[in-house]
């Protein structure tokens, strides 16, 4: 099992001829990800590490009907167009790595994808990995190992940090999903946690949140109202961030009185979710809750 990406995932890389697309195509292939084809307008007919490149998503899918998901490395100016193209081809999920996409663009493709029942991971995210199965993203695979902890995070490197600690604690991960650091993103915490609930391989879930928005508060509300059967632990970054300033991620901003770390910590604690004070505690907390 695992969620979102697994052995059956067949990947299309959009923006495959750019430096990031090229580099990560290689890294994904080395990991064993089934990268089937790539798309860059105007570069049809080329090959990238043996992967054929097409001008249109439609062409790629006609030639390789097994393609079922996409990863987007297309620069921000053109990224929305690429995502719409993937939605029209019914690829699911679509992982959007690109940072700096205008919010108005994300609002459109995220709503369109939801209407069509297609899952968008990102934008501005590291993608997803199901260790031992596949990786559709840019996460450094050697920090991950197959196991029972699901991780869902708004951050990149902080996810690697915590995944590494979980690996070292011999717990391992079922799937790690970086849902993105932008204000408008596709999948949210609640949707991913619902998937982890249904996944038999996942024994517990780690939430890595940060300041900005109210996704953590909404998750806490969901846990309080609906309940979850699997243990959930959390870490929230940005306790020392000043209001009104964007902390690296476009979405990491305490604005209009909303999105502070305190509000998130309080909501999660009220929902009975243990929150780690420092990142390395996550592994301990998870171990403790899993053995209880």
């Amino acid at each position: 099992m695992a969620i979102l990406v697994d052995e059956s995932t067949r990947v299309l890389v959009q923006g495959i001829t750019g430096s990031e697309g090229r580099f990560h195509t290689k890294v994904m292939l080395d990991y064993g990800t089934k990268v089937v084809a790539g798309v860059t307008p105007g570069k049809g007919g080329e090959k990238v590490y043996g992967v054929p490149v097409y001008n249109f998503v439609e062409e790629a899918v006609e030639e390789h009907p097994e393609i079922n998901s996409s990863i987007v490395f297309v620069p921000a100016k053109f990224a929305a167009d690429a995502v719409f193209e993937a939605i029209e081809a019914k690829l699911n999920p679509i992982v959007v790595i690109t940072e700096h996409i205008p919010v108005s663009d994300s609002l459109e493709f995220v709503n369109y994808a939801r209407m069509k029942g297609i899952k968008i991971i990102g934008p501005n995210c590291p993608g997803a990995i199901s260790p031992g199965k596949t990786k559709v993203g840019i996460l450094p695979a050697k920090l991950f190992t197959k196991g029972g902890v699901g991780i869902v995070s708004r951050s990149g490197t902080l996810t690697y940090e915590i995944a590494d600690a979980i690996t070292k604690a011999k717990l391992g991960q079922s799937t790690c999903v970086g849902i993105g650091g932008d204000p408008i993103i596709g999948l949210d915490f609640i949707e991913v946690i619902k998937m982890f609930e249904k996944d038999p391989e996942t024994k517990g879930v780690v939430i890595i949140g940060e300041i900005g928005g109210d996704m953590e508060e909404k998750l806490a509300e969901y846990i309080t109202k609906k309940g979850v059967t699997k243990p959930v632990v959390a870490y929230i970054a940005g306790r020392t961030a000043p209001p009104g300033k964007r902390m690296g991620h476009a979405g990491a901003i305490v604005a209009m009185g909303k999105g502070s770390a305190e509000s998130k910590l309080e909501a999660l604690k009220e929902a009975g979710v243990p929150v780690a004070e420092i990142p390395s505690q996550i592994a301990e907390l998870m171990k403790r809750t899993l053995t209880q």
Partner: protein
Amino acid sequence: MKLHEFEAKKIFSEHGIPVPNGKVASNPEETEEIAREIGKPVMLKSQVLVAGRGKAGGIIKVKNPEGAYTTAKKLFGMKIKGLQVKKLLVEEELKITKELYLSLTVDRSARKYVFLASSEGGMEIEKLAAEKPEKIVKVAINPLVGIKEFQVRKIIQRMGLQEYFKQVRGIIKAFKEIASRYDCELVESNPLVLTEEREIVAADARIIIDDNSLFRHQQFQRRFEEERGEMTQLELTALKEGFSYVDLEGSVGVIANGAGLTMASMDLVAKFGGKPANFLDIGGGASAERVRKAVEIQLRNPKVRGVLVNILGGITRCDEVAKGLIEALEEVKIQKPIIIRMQGTREEEGRKILKEAGISYLDTMEEAAKKIVEVVKGVSD
């Protein structure tokens, strides 16, 4: 990117939203002249990109052109929250019978645009939301569908403006048009007012454009690069180098890769009793050159008493980080303690480089944060 009030009002006016009669002045003489043209009491409004201008004394009512001159002289010499007043918006004083609130913004969790409206305006919307949430109506707008008539009706009814339906409807529609045309994070009028002449006028106007969309709005892009409102000089320098950087109050410089990890590093410094001087995210895959620049920015900052470097290499390579660090130390020659935590891609190579240069490193971010706090405390005592 925040627009000045006068810029926002120009856009409002171009979209048919009534704004007070007024003009922008760059000196006391111009201020006097505009006041004379208007021919009645005017408001002098400092054009600085900070919240709370009014409370800080940046908005003053004057009765006549002579008064406008002397008051303008004072205002032009003033700094409001650290920002020099360079422009005044000189506007007719409105005869207001009611203050209202209207804005269009993005609802992150609903993934929609949202209109916020209230029959009570003038005070901060955050305050209103906390004290009288029942006074605010929220109407979500699907970006693929746009605003529908029933939504317009709902907003107008809740604002209590049925009598002025046509006028307000025009304003609501214009807000949506402005938001789409300029990729806005916020279009706001607080207060939107009803005047004695029974007109609805945007007494104040705020527009925030999404920074990521500026490539579509060349007319603002240059201004954005020249003048970034509340940013400090250090923030500007770091931004020019392409770093995510935020100035803070403390003494520990923080460098890490990735926004989440950098925030977590700051939080750890605070947790162990220190205070972060800043947030510097070098991003993914930084070269030695970028690392050198990041370390230099820290060393040259007089507030920084010590630097924490926290690298977890994924696409970032530890050997590049180590090289950049050493180059910076050789070049800058400012002695400040640096504590390094480095792990991940090319860790061995990176550590070897540091060892050969006689620089020590730690394995975990907790150890490193604890250590830098101890060291910096030692320096300041």
